[in-house]
């Protein structure tokens, strides 16, 4: 295991050992090792690279270091910046996991239940990747969907997220009160400058889903220069619309019971997310 202290060193270490695997908090990686699914030949630890453990401002955006922990993102100064990401971070596992687990690990692991992912989708965030040939920037979804995977020697360095200065929410359904993986989650952000509501549904599909038509429909109903308030029926309709677009009726026959429950869950979460963002 090598422990580089800068991004450049880390990239060089990875390039020198093609079989090496980067490890940040190790909360996903080590459970794969412990259950015998993964036997990395070598590890490059990212924990000492201080340049990617914090965040900075860049042209109205925040540049978030890949090694920001969930615990750090859950604190109130970060919550003032990107509230939905802070809420997701607070819901991502028990405290031990949140102290170690990172934003970059959550993205690179790309689990359907990754809690940061729907928030980043709603924010339309991008990732900055550092590799032997310099850096490149792509939408988060391109990486997590595998359209444009990490290249050899490449590391996830930063996440660029817009600062929207407006309410955001994140809600996650699980089956207990204590920490648990999402059965469905909803991230919703208001973007007053672009007069838009953006929403992403997590955990119901391999990657977050955007109910674009529902977003567009509800964005048009909102009086962006006024109170922004909506009738309860409009919020309910938005929830149903969003849920229906993520979990459509099958071409034939009835929706299986488990999916019907999931759709109701998404509808309730999306409705509550919008109500809270507008209240």
């Amino acid at each position, binding site marked *: 295991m090598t422990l580089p202290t800068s991004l450049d060193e880390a990239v060089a270490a990875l390039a020198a050992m093609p079989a090496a695997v980067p490890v940040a908090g190790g909360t996903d990686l080590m459970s794969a090792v412990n259950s015998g699914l993964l036997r990395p030949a070598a590890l490059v630890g990212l924990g000492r690279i201080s340049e990617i453990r914090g965040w900075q401002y860049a042209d109205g955006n925040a540049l978030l270091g890949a090694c920001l922990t969930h615990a750090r993102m859950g604190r109130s100064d970060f919550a003032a910046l990107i509230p939905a990401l802070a809420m997701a971070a607070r819901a991502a596992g028990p405290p031990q996991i949140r102290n170690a687990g990172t934003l970059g690990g959550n993205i690179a692991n790309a689990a359907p239940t990754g809690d940061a992912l729907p928030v980043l989708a709603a924010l339309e965030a991008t990732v900055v990747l550092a590799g032997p040939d310099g850096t490149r920037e792509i939408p988060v979804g391109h990486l997590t969907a595998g359209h444009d995977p990490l290249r050899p020697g490449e590391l996830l360095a930063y996440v660029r997220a817009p600062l929207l200065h407006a309410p955001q929410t994140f809600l*996650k*359904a699980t089956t*207990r*009160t*204590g920490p648990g*993986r*999402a059965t469905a989650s909803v991230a919703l952000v208001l973007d007053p400058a672009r007069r838009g509501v953006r929403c992403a549904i997590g955990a119901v599909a391999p990657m977050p889903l955007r109910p674009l038509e529902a977003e567009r429909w509800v964005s048009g109903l909102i009086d962006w220069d006024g109170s922004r308030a909506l009738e309860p029926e409009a919020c309910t309709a938005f929830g149903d619309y969003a849920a229906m677009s993520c979990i459509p009726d099958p071409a034939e026959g009835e929706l299986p019971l488990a999916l019907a429950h999931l759709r109701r869950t998404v509808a309730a979460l999306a409705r*509550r997310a919008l109500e809270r963002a507008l209240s």
Partner: protein
Amino acid sequence: MGTQMRGTAAPGRTPTSLSRRSRTKGGIGESTLRPDGTLKVIGEFAYSSDLWHEDMLWGFTLRSPHPHARITSIDISKALAQAGVHAVLTHDDLPTAHTQYGLEYTDTPVLADGVVRHHGEPVALVAADHPETARRAAAKIKVDYEPLPVVHDEASALADDAPILHPNRDDHHAGHVPHPNIVHRQPIIRGNAAEAAKRADVIVTGEYEVGMQDQAFLGPESGLAVPAEDGGIDLYIATQWLHSDLRQIAPVLGLPEEKVRMTLSGVGGAFGGREDLSMQIHACLLALRTGKPVKIVYNRFESFFGHVHRHPAKLWYEHGATKDGKITHMKCRIVLDGGAYASSSPAVVGNASSLSVGPYVVDDVEIEALALYTNNPPCGAMRGFGAVQACFAYESQMDKLAEKLGMDPVEFRQKNAMSQGAIMPTGQIVDSPAPVAELLRLIKAMPLPPEKQWETARGAADVRALPGGLSNTTHGEGVVRGVGYAVGIKNVGFSEGFDDYSTARVQLQVIGGEPVATVHTAMAEVGQGGITVNAQIARTELGVTQVVIHPADTQVGSAGSTSASRQTYMTGGAVKNACEAIREKVLETGRRKFGTYHPAWATAELLLEDGKVVTDSDEPLADLVDVLGDEVIDIELQWRHRPTEAFDPVTGQGFGHVQYSFAAHRAVVEVDTELGLVKVIELACAQDVGKALNPLSVKGQIHGATVQGLGLAVMEEIIVAKDAKVCNPSFTDYLIPTILDTPAIPVEVLELADEHAPYGLRGIGEAPTLSSTPAVVAAIRAATGLPLVRVPVRPEHITGT
């Protein structure tokens, strides 16, 4: 201090019950702290998985991926050829003709014998110099399976063409069962239910279902077997009952029991799941084969396959009642899924049937309980043992009856509650306090938590107090409160004529100028606090403050199992008994040495307190140190509870149980009715404990049992697919309550002595597991108006989708 002489006192009579509080510090009734507590909290307690030996090998178990299959061939050559591998064993390598074991029936193969009967059944063993090497070698064992049809429920088990899972049964129930795939069936008939039903103004029926709960102990199965020079073996092991393991291990190894020396090592919870063997025989076989110490530790995944689970059950009930709220009769049929091997299914059936009425007076009953053999995972002991399943069903019925009669559910229960002198469906008279109505009164009288308890002073919602918790799903939207009640009855100790005993060896001697008692038992401390209580008993009985608890091993007689709420009663009773015998000896010696100096030696009731022999009016006669001198008093004695008898196989009549234990719960829940999420915010419990030997431990047991019942109510279930495969063997997918799921648990304790039990105590560890589950479900029903006939209640049952 005046000396009061009682002329009538028999000379030297030793009081057998302590009528006054002992002055010796750290005695019974005090909340002395457990020695393992802090170590466990700070992560320094040594569990059996931490065992280590120079030069040891690691064992690994290859398990069946099929629930039912014939093994046509096994090729171990590639595994054996791997560097670092010391042995590979299959059924053919077993050293003796004893190739099966089992708690009640000897029906479980040590390694699969040509057939596997459940997903995860052990097929082969590997010992290697590194756990990873052992794991990889096991993957190279080539096993050819020919899948067989799967038996997965009652219909497929009892069908005409059902495969018979154990064709050559020779167990004692085989002759009584209507079908060879029924492990055991126990009917109970008392009075005339059909006739009594005619008196009923209302009749209520229901079908209920209980999912497969897991003990989910945190310390996985593990142990270390060390071959000894005499050809025997030393086994360091986490178990619930050393001597029962020993009885099953020795014949398979072909060793006399004296050559299998077992020592209890740190146990990380048990809850019934360590009553059966797991890796014990496997580690010993590998150690004897290789001549080296062998350690086996399961990981969490394997642990889900490594022990039996709670029996899933289907329960059909019918109750009738008169308009004024008196139950007329009860009929029920309880079908338990025992899985592939018998484990303790027969005893679970005995409990389910004999406790199926609950703590109520019903004179006319028709009861049938049975356990099936299927290809599902084997099921056996788990806290509550057959009484849990029945309690969910009869308490659901009580609410249904009360509602139909328009009565308050607590008043209805109180009207039918049993009390001392009541007759069980088995004809057994309940001959000690049974304060069922009083327990219900106590929980009902407790103040309710305030409405909207999640609102903080600043007006914001504390999401931790709401369904969904930190997942932030609700700030009060869609949330409805419900309140529910339940009460249950559990037996204590081993029943149905089992010769249940414990053994204690106690030594008393002077060490470093102080009297010291050493208590040696084979009792498994699995977290229940038994070692703490045993020391308290020794202090109280012998009046010494220094008590050494000898490690539990098989060098002393059996203590019986740490299960059935029995260890404080049984091993506590054995320690008390041995201490009384020691005290007799002390007094004998004292009379011999000092009797001539003071008449009280001959005439008064004498006690040992504060390191002295004192009269019952507190006059000191001699220091223990002087009485003992160099003498070591050393006594080992067995101790039994009063005998019980088997249930009649046709009528179910018989004095089957030693003691009964009662607890009642009130659950207060907040339900997010749109998402189907439940937050239990309070689960108040009242229990009669007879005598609280350690009040803090009593509370701990009640808290733990209550939370385990909550787990069954709303989240804990091993999902077994129709093809009998286990779907969720991990703590990501098998959820247990966390501290955020744990409600406030106010506890009211009654101490009504049972004259048959030591100190009047009652076994307490299980009763609160029973009533917790139905109380929570009753509260969810109250919040939602839904019938909810299955546990665990899942979100989709609440949202109705």
